[in-house]
């Protein structure tokens, strides 16, 4: 089976090279048959990669320990779900998975455009296969997932999957993130094709809008799931730590978000053509760069794999993309020139432009912080890491500016907004925002950032509510519809607009959740059975500690009663686990337990144990408003799905 998988990858590499040659000949001599052959070759590459990924999955599920990758990332005890997840647990597998997602996307693009965009498609396919070619080169010559174990015998058992990765969210986090990362290859391919044929009008933008949103959606889900996993698994009570790998996923998300907004201007006003090209190229480059950071170990991170020549190949690929893209943008600068100009600073266009500048500035700041250890090592000879306060100092004010624009932008008119419209649209939300600040100040919130965040959040909530209210009122008057019908009809006829508002609502809820971070509290205690500790008006009593033996680990399970006003309100069961017990690979792991609430989470971690002496280390945290972050995530997903949903032809 392993030989079959390795041969499939060899064949796919050869076929990808042939695809490039055939497409080149078609472009040069315009032979229609060769285009069809090239198209089928590209589909063939996708088919071979899909078969190779399926082969590796079968090997993982069958525990074929004669394959090095299988022996490294699974064991006999690994549950079936995590055997599937092992496909993206290691470097070789995750690159094959990257390739698999790209192959599926390429096939979809080819089928979608069989009778469309005739001048762009040869180049689009060439770019997509070109990217596949790079990854095929990597999995064939650098990190092949099918190589046999480096021993004369077949191991009786594998090393097993890292316990931290044996979590449902973690099983889903990498594939969702990859669906996003890889998804940006499609708009990038169309952008390069449009540049080559010098057709940078609204057509290419219209063609990739849905793909961009699709990639953006998965990237967002991946980031949120990563945060959710960190919060529910790592036991430090947070969901974002500005880790280099987190930043690597956040940077393309930032430029991608800017792109999602600015293509609206190009589509409607034929402006910002160069800017959009730069944004989508940057987003794709950052996706590849993100994969490089994650997999090369160039910047130390909890996620990174060990450094090898692999990193240099990735960096070379990034440089090649930048060089080709820069050449195309510079040589096509005449066709990229916009004939139209911004008419006023108080217009929807300028709102979008400000939002773009801010997103890109934040991306630069994050990039600088992420690369600073490397830069300092080169320039000063020692590695200086940038920590959370640096990022917070920059990200909080920039985030507040973005939050403001999320409220202001949608209420500005295209081209120019009159004073009359400004007063009418902003007076009520402003009163709501200022009122919220006053109420929260009286309630005791005196810190400037939390107060501003809450005030701005309510201001944006005000603007979005007003938009929905006015839209519904207009329809009920005009078409005599009831409230619900008006809401549904209005949203379904203007999906990108109202879907966008729902996404903005999600962002507001997330910001409300972020405010909670300023009010976190915690206590850590060494307890015996019957001991108690107190925090934020709650009393926590360690009632019992039970020993459990499970298939792939042993666990100490605490029974922690939570009391408020002498009444038990909940019982938490954090666990202290030992994976691979009584072997030389014994690994400790704390499985936390929490009670989630709209106002605050009660979070408990069983961080250590001396079971023979009956002493147990328990950490308890009160994390306010975290629930709102996840609620915001649901709104973001729902809003994006509404915005992406295709319109019926007759509409």
């Amino acid at each position: 089976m392993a030989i079959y998988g390795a041969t499939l990858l060899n064949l796919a590499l050869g076929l990808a090279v042939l695809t490039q040659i055939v497409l080149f000949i078609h472009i040069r001599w315009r032979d229609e048959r060769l285009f069809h052959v090239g198209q089928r070759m590209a589909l063939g590459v996708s088919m071979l990669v899909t078969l190779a990924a399926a082969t590796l999955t079968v090997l993982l599920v069958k525990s074929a320990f004669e394959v090095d990758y299988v022996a490294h990332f699974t064991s006999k005890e690994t549950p079936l779900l995590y055997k599937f997840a092992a496909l993206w647990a290691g470097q070789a597998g995750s690159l094959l998975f990257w390739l698999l997602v790209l192959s599926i996307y390429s096939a979809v693009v080819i089928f979608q455009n069989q009778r469309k965009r005739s001048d762009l498609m040869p180049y689009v396919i060439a770019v997509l296969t070109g990217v596949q070619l790079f990854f095929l080169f990597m999995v064939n010559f650098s990190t092949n997932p099918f190589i046999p174990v480096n021993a004369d015998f077949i191991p009786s058992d594998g090393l097993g999957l890292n316990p931290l990765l044996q979590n449902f969210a973690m099983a889903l986090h990498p594939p969702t993130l990859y669906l996003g990362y890889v998804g940006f290859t499609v708009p990038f391919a169309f952008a390069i094709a449009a540049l080559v044929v010098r057709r940078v009008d609204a057509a290419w933008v219209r063609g990739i809008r849905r793909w961009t949103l699709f990639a953006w959606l998965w990237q967002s889900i991946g980031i949120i799931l990563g945060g959710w996993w960190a919060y529910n698994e790592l036991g430090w009570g947070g969901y974002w730590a500005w880790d280099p790998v987190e930043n690597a996923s956040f940077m393309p998300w930032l430029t991608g978000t800017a792109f999602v907004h600015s293509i609206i201007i190009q589509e409607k006003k034929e402006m910002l053509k160069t800017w959009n090209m730069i944004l989508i190229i940057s987003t794709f480059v950052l996706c590849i760069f993100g994969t490089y950071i994650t997999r090369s170990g160039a910047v130390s991170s909890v996620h990174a794999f060990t450094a090898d020549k692999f990193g240099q190949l990735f960096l070379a690929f990034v440089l090649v993309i930048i060089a080709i893209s820069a050449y195309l943008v510079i040589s096509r600068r005449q066709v990229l020139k916009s004939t139209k100009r911004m008419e006023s600073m108080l217009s929807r266009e300028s709102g979008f432009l400000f939002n773009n500048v801010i997103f890109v500035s934040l991306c630069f700041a994050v990039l600088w912080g992420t690369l600073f250890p490397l830069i300092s090592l080169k320039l000063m000879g020692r590695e200086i890491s940038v920590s959370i306060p640096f990022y917070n100092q920059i990200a909080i004010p920039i985030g507040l500016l973005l939050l403001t624009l999320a409220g202001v932008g949608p209420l500005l008119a295209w081209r120019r907004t009159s004073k009359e419209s400004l007063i009418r649209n902003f007076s009520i939300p402003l009163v709501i925002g200022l009122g919220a600040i006053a109420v929260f100040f009286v309630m005791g919130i005196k810190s400037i950032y939390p107060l501003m965040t809450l005030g701005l959040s309510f201001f944006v909530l005000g603007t979005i509510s007003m938009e929905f209210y006015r839209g519904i009122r207009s329809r009920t008057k005009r078409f005599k519809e009831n409230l619900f019908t008006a809401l549904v009809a209005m949203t379904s006829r203007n999906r990108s607009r109202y879907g966008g508002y729902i996404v903005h609502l999600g962002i507001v809820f997330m910001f409300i959740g972020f405010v909670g971070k300023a009010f976190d509290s915690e206590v850590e205690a060494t307890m015996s059975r019957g001991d108690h500790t107190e925090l934020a008006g709650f009393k926590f009593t360690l009632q019992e500690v039970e020993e459990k033996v499970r298939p792939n680990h042993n666990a100490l399970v605490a029974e922690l009663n939570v009391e408020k006003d002498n009444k038990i309100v909940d019982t938490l069961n954090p666990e202290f686990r030992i994976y691979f017990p009584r072997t030389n690979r014994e690994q400790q792991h704390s499985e936390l337990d929490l009670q989630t609430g709209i106002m605050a989470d009660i979070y408990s971690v069983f961080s250590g144990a001396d079971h023979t002496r009956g002493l147990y280390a328990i950490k308890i945290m009160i994390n306010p408003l975290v629930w709102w972050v996840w609620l915001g995530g649901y709104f973001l997903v729902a809003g994006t799905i509404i915005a992406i949903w295709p319109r019926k032809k007759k509409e």
Partner: protein
Amino acid sequence: MFAEIMILLTFAVLVIFIVQPLFATHVAIHSDTEDDEMQTLQLRKEIIFRQIKEAEMEHDMGNLSDEDYKRTRLMLKEEASLIIDDIEQQGKS
């Protein structure tokens, strides 16, 4: 042996699939560049018409003042008529 048979089978299926257009009696010809240009103009027209609809909706909702609405509508209509002229020219040629 199983692996070898699978490899040969995959290779054979792939080759048949790829070379088939070379032996086909009829190959679908791509639409030419003129069709693409026409499609782009139609798309521009559709975008402008949609913007006129949106401006109307914004006005009905009370987001656009009468002054803003009239100005926006006039500009969009001018743009639309230019595009329609281009489409007619393209149709004649």
